[in-house]
């Protein structure tokens, strides 16, 4: 019992570790599919920009309330807002403009900006002053401002919040008005009572509610909490006004749907694999003990896998678990080999000694294959690879330690053994015997043919939708809301770089000027310099005023005196202006203050020595014109998150192709040690040929072939080589037994990956499909390539 005790002790330690982590809250299940993707390698700024865009979009929730009756819209929205803001799971719940910044805050902001009022000019005023300055320092051009001011003071409600004398030309008022353009979405409107709304093409109004998740919606516990709150909010809103149609946009619901699906699939694939395993084991070995032991060995392996993965990565992705569930079918091979060997060597230790070289070599090739998957800097695949390697090693240890100790009496020879003997005598292996030349030719020919088909017709797909395929209803809501708010569903931005904050802002302002000059609608973008004039612009503004309205011989004195202001008041105002010279509304002050609300997230700060900001593009109506503008700015580049991720998938597909070839090379080297060059080639030929045939199949059918198919092909190498290894290492009487194990393992693998092919995540579906088809082909080819030897030794 010493070995079994060791195994039991190990399992106990692992279970305790996991329990401790779960208790301490350090065990995280991650569900963000994009977390599986590598960070863009190119540079730190792009990486930061991608992350910022994802972050900004990820936590936001938008609810749109549609009903012809305004009162219904109102009460539904209010009911939902009450639940959301009372929950603690969401912050910045906003039904009205005031919810983001109320009058008192706005007043404070204005007061704090008073110091800089001569540095701030609305774009239109600035342009008018520039024109006036160009026409020899004023004159007619400035009449525009005095006329406006006169109209203001004599008109209705002049003065507003402040004193007229502090802003006689209305420049500060104009600046604040130009700032109130909302940065959230082009079509978002504020109703008279401050409520957000938008209008559809049919003129119908829709109420809009914003909320921000406090935590990342991809964290499973936060996600569940937020979903519960959202569902209650919707329920309450519908109860408040039954006729109101409510649409929801936000990553939260997609994330929740994806993890729900992953959970169902884990259960489905796991259960399917296990049931298959149960039936096959009981049928083959006629007893409950082999089954229980196999499940224990695999369970131990999975436990090790979870603990190791969590320790290395800090979290376990749900897709890793989906993938892991399919691994059950691979890990069981070792158990099968052990139990079928006992038909020949009833003594458990002897049986283990008999299969140990084969299963160890099998483990080595599998680890090699999975290991090459981990070589790609692809976090998700790395995690799956680590999970698989740890799981296989754990199971192998279980076979080594647990199985011989508890194996019980040897199983009786059963139906499978008889079937396999018949198969060896009259099936494919017999057919292959003595026809080596013919087979070699056939293999070579089909290899060439399949390669040609693949090369000609295979049209790889690197779309990000391989990872995401949300339910049509959710996507429909998303699209409709984007349409109503005038924003696109895809996050695109321009990244502007510089060697310091000032130079970034200067470059950004220049890009915006050119965008405006190119006639690209200003509603289409949000940018920092729309809310904050860079110091250079502030200085220019002041100088511009100095040369025009506030020039020594300018209109200021005459104008104010005409209105009836005394000399004292006029002098005081002039002194205010003189005192303001050289003042600068510092960028850091803006960034830290309330004025940055809504725009602050566009500042990327410093990344690896480079400073950068984002110009967020809500939609791009004319990509050609946009590209034209950007061409003349070396420091600005368009960042298309979707395109960038697709580009990554494409790059890594190339890398994976290379890895596949390297893995084959390494496996050939490794296998040539026991089998020689020719033998090693024969072992590797089946998976190789099967891989090319699968690729050809995908080429002919037009199914999506991506990076994930390539990773499946790498695994096919690991598993396919196993078959050859077992068939080669088993001689004579052992052969039938080995073949039963290979046969059973192919069945369970096929079952597991066949089930994975049913996954509704396209990447996993491709993966499963490739492996399922590949396994069948490899299995058949393995007998042709390795079965021809020593058929004579089939008597048992």
């Amino acid at each position, binding site marked *: 019992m010493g070995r079994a005790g060791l195994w039991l002790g190990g399992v106990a330690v692992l279970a305790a570790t996991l329990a401790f982590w779960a208790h301490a809250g350090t065990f995280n299940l991650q569900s963000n599919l994009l977390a599986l993707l590598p960070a863009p390698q190119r540079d730190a700024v792009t990486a930061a920009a991608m992350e910022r865009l994802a972050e900004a979009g990820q936590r936001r929730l938008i609810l749109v309330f549609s009903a012809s009756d305004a009162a219904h819209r109102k009460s539904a929205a209010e009911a939902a807002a009450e639940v959301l803001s009372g929950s603690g799971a969401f912050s910045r719940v906003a039904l009205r403009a005031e919810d983001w910044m109320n009058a008192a805050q706005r007043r404070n902001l204005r007061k704090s900006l008073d110091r800089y009022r001569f540095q701030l000019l609305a774009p239109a005023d600035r342009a008018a002053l520039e024109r006036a300055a160009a026409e020899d320092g004023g004159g007619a051009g400035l009449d525009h401002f005095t006329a406006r001011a006169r*109209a203001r003071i004599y008109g209705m409600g002049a003065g507003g919040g402040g*004193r007229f004398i502090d802003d006689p030309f209305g420049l500060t008022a104009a600046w604040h008005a130009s700032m109130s353009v909302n940065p959230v979405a082009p079509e978002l409107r504020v109703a008279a009572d401050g409520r957000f709304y938008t209008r559809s093409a049919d003129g119908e109004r829709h109420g809009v509610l914003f909320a921000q998740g406090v935590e990342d919606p991809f964290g499973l516990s936060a996600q569940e909490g937020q979903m519960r709150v959202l569902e209650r909010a919707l329920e309450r809103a519908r109860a408040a006004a039954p006729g109101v149609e409510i649409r929801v946009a936000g990553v939260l619901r997609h994330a929740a749907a994806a993890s729900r699906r992953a959970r169902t699939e884990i259960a489905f694939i796991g259960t399917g694999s296990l049931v298959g395993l149960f039936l096959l084991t009981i049928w083959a070995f006629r007893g409950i003990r082999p089954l229980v032991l196999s499940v224990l060995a695999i369970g131990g392996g999975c436990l090790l896998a979870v603990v190791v993965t969590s320790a290395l990565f800090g979290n376990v992705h749900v897709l890793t678990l989906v993938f892991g569930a399919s691994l059950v079918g691979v890990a069981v091979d070792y158990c099968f080999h052990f139990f079928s060997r006992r038909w020949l060597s009833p003594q458990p230790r002897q049986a283990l000694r008999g299969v140990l070289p084969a299963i160890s070599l099998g483990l080595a090739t599998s680890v090699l294959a999975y290991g090459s998957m981990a070589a790609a800097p692809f976090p998700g695949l790395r995690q799956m690879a680590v999970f698989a390697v740890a799981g296989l090693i754990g199971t192998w240890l279980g076979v080594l330690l647990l199985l011989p100790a508890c194996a019980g009496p040897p199983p009786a020879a059963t139906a499978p053994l008889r079937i396999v003997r018949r198969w060896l005598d009259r099936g494919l292996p017999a057919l292959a015997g003595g026809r080596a030349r013919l087979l070699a030719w056939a293999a070579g020919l089909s290899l060439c043919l399949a390669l040609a088909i693949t090369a000609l017709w295979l049209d790889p797909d690197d779309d990000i939708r391989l990872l995401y395929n949300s339910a049509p209803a959710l996507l429909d809501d998303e699209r409709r809301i984007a349409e109503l708010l005038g924003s696109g569903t895809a996050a695109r931005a321009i990244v502007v770089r510089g060697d310091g904050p000032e130079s970034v802002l200067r470059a950004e302002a220049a890009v915006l000027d050119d965008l405006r000059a190119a006639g690209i609608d200003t509603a289409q973008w949000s940018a920092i310099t729309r809310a904050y004039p860079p110091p250079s612009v502030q200085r220019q503004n002041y100088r511009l005023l100095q040369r025009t309205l506030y020039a020594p011989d300018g209109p200021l004195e005459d104008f104010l005196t005409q209105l009836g202001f005394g000399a004292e008041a006029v002098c005081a105002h002039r002194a205010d202006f003189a005192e303001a010279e050289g003042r600068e509304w510092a960028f850091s002050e803006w960034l830290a203050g309330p004025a940055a609300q809504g725009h602050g997230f566009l500042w990327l700060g410093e990344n690896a020595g480079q400073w950068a900001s984002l110009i967020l593009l809500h939609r791009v109506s004319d990509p050609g014109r946009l590209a034209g503008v950007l061409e003349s700015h070396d420091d600005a580049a368009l960042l298309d998150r979707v395109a960038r991720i697709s580009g990554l998938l494409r790059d890594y597909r190339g890398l994976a192709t290379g890895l596949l070839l390297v893995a084959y090379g390494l496996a050939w080297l490794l296998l040539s040690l026991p089998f020689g060059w020719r033998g090693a080639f024969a072992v590797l030929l089946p998976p190789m040929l099967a891989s090319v045939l699968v690729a050809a199949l995908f080429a002919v059918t037009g199914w999506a072939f991506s990076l994930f198919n390539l990773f499946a092909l790498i695994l096919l190498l690991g598993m396919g080589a196993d078959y050859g290894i077992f068939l080669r290492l088993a001689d004579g009487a052992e052969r039938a037994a080995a073949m039963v194990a290979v046969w059973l393992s192919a069945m369970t693998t096929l079952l597991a990956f066949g089930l994975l092919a049913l996954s509704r995540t396209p990447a996993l579906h491709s993966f499963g499909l490739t492996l399922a088809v590949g396994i069948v082909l490899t299995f058949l080819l393995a007998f042709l390539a390795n079965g021809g030897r020593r058929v004579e030794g089939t008597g048992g």
Partner: protein
Amino acid sequence: MSRFPVIVMALFAAFGAVAAPADDAAGSPLVRAGSQADVLRGSFRQEKYLAELDRPLVSSGRFLMARDHGLIWEIEQPFESTLIIGRQHMVQRVDGRQTLRLSRAEQPGLRVVAAVLMAVFQADMDRLRDFFDIRAVSGAGSGEGEGWHFVMRPTADSVAEFVARLTVHGADEKVERIEFEEPGGDRSVIRLQTAPDSESPLTPRERREFVD
């Protein structure tokens, strides 16, 4: 910019009250009155009291409000200036030259104003109560004539930024005087007089003004 219309809004609230010296704070008389006239014309005289000025700034001119179109506020003295608040934009002209033009699309604040304006036209008292706490004082003869007046204090944040208090004085069925107090301490008094042809339909020229 969005400060202009606030008083406009107040003005219309006052017009709403034309036919209805209020008995209490209820809005029903307003509803009745407001729904009567599609068009109202008249003349005004405004005195603006600024803390820094010894004498008030006086202006006078004509006004036109059209239920489905908006408002024209035309200053004739001491200089010519026109403010047009339409459904889609707000335009200011001085001596025939446009000095200001805001469209609803680029100025969400204007949408707010326009919406309120229309609410007032349609005598949507419920809507007005979203912005103001309205107290009506009947027969309090502090002003001229057979006095009644409303005191409106803003309750909505967006309005409170521009108006501290709004008082509408009237006698019988007419609004006579509007007092507009700003948070900064400046104060305006507007006296109104409706014209004899006050309710005749819009002329084509007037109509164009709103569309322009």
